[in-house]
């Protein structure tokens, strides 16, 4: 990864995540001009330089006493110079590498409301990705609202995806309809869908093992956007992305029957 590219983003978010970002940036060797002056001392570096500074003054050893020997801060260091949490101890570059890579491009918080999400560029990108899926699948078309329509609200759901180590690797925004407002016979008919049983999966595994063939898996992205529905369903425009002008041309029937109503 090129850190020069990432620098603006990192700096931008520096205030919020100062706790863990600053030591990382130091260790990965990037030059952050605004920080180099005050951040020259880190726990790791200090231990190597401890001898040179052994006879210094202005010391605090408030924390050092209850830490393991190797984590202790040399007595000759003022605590103001230590960046990050002293209790975290030494971390190596390799463990932080992964962490650092995603840090710049992924938001670390899960917004509660759309307004919160719209303030973060990463979440806006995630929301655009989701809306592009809608466009790609031609899920809906825009029409003006009439009094006869039973309009179902929509809602944004924000979720951070973690990897095995619990590090956030992806911001996922999903636009969902408030299906609890649907009425049977008007907005939906049959809803039953068969789902595989675990016994069936185990049987398949046993059968595959017996016949010595490998099983593979894959999944469909945004599966539910692919279905064609039979009923006409009107949903409100996604919050934060609404368009106010009415476009009549969208009324011509497409493959899907989901209609958007305009907010105006």
């Amino acid at each position, binding site marked *: 990864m090129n850190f020069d590219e990432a620098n603006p983003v990192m700096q931008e978010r520096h205030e919020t995540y100062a706790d863990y970002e600053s030591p990382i940036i130091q260790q990965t060797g990037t030059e952050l001009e605004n920080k180099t002056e005050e951040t020259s001392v880190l726990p790791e570096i200090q231990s190597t330089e401890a001898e040179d500074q052994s006879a210094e003054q202005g010391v605090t050893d408030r924390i050092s006493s209850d830490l393991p020997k190797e984590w202790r801060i040399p007595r000759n260091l003022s605590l103001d110079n230590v960046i990050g949490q002293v209790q975290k101890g030494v971390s190596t570059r390799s463990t932080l590498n992964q962490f650092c890579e995603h840090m710049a491009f992924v938001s670390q918080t899960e917004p509660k409301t759309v307004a919160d999400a719209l303030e973060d560029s990463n979440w806006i990108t995630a929301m655009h990705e989701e809306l592009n899926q*809608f466009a*790609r699948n031609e899920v*809906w078309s825009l029409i003006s609202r009439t009094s006869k329509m039973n309009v*179902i609200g*929509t*809602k944004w759901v924000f979720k951070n995806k973690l990897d095995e180590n619990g590090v956030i690797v992806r911001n996922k925004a*999903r636009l*969902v*309809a*408030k*299906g609890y407002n*649907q009425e049977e016979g008007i*907005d*939906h*008919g*049959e*809803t*039953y*869908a*068969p*789902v*595989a*049983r*675990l*016994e*069936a*999966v*185990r*049987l*398949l*595994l*046993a*059968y*595959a*093992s*017996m*016949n*010595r*063939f*490998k*099983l*593979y*898996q*894959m*999944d*469909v*992205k*945004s*599966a*539910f*956007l*692919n*279905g*064609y*529905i*039979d*009923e006409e*369903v009107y*949903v409100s425009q996604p919050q934060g992305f609404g368009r106010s002008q009415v476009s009549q041309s969208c009324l011509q029937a497409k493959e899907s029957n*989901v209609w958007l109503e305009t907010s105006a």
Partner: protein
Amino acid sequence: MYGLKQAPRQWYERLSSFLLSHSYERGKIDKTLFIKKSCSNIILVQVYVDDIIFGSTNENLCKQFFTTMQGEFEMSMMGELNYFLGLQIKQLNHETFLSQTKYCKELLKKFNMESCKESATPMATNCYLDSDDKGTSVDQTKYRGLIGSLLYLIASRPDIMFSVCLCARFQANPKESHFSAGKRILKYLQRTTTVGLWYPTNVSLNLVGYSDSDFAGCKIDRKSISGTCHLLGSSLVSWHSKKQACVALSTA
């Protein structure tokens, strides 16, 4: 669109009609299994909502299936089946292992039992659980959470089935004694975290079923408890344990 009541059904409809149009046959019993035979080769496709497991006697058929699917839907990469619905699957040349080690560890962590003592059995043979009206009540939500988590673990662990089902009968009014019986199961899991199922190769494909029952095993209403298991060749594929619906007068 996500959230609509008909969304899962319409997705199944779309996927199944796509597969049927590509000369796949839908399973007669299991409607989520799709089969295609060509010459002596067979391809099996099992659908779990948006997850698809597939395998074939001929590798080329798998690739062909993947490309046809990719042409119609936006798919993730095809990968070997190793983690599905919390089941860890290890496919080797001569055998397949199925376990829920990861899930089991998380379960122990969830109930703060990561460093508990081990126990060799999930339940004592003389364990006597009744409604225990005089006992002190425990948090119902926590107890139900424990039972629910353990029930999912049964997907690869028939050994704890009986004891979990026994504990599950007291969910309406859980007492201290029931909760400690549940914790005893966790202590057993601590010892047997990595236990799972083993599916060997090269065995004859015949289905064998066993069943058994005790006599008046339930101390509260004197009903019997029966259990069954089914083996395909020598691989265990299905099992159950259930209290019978009516009071039995004999074991026969």
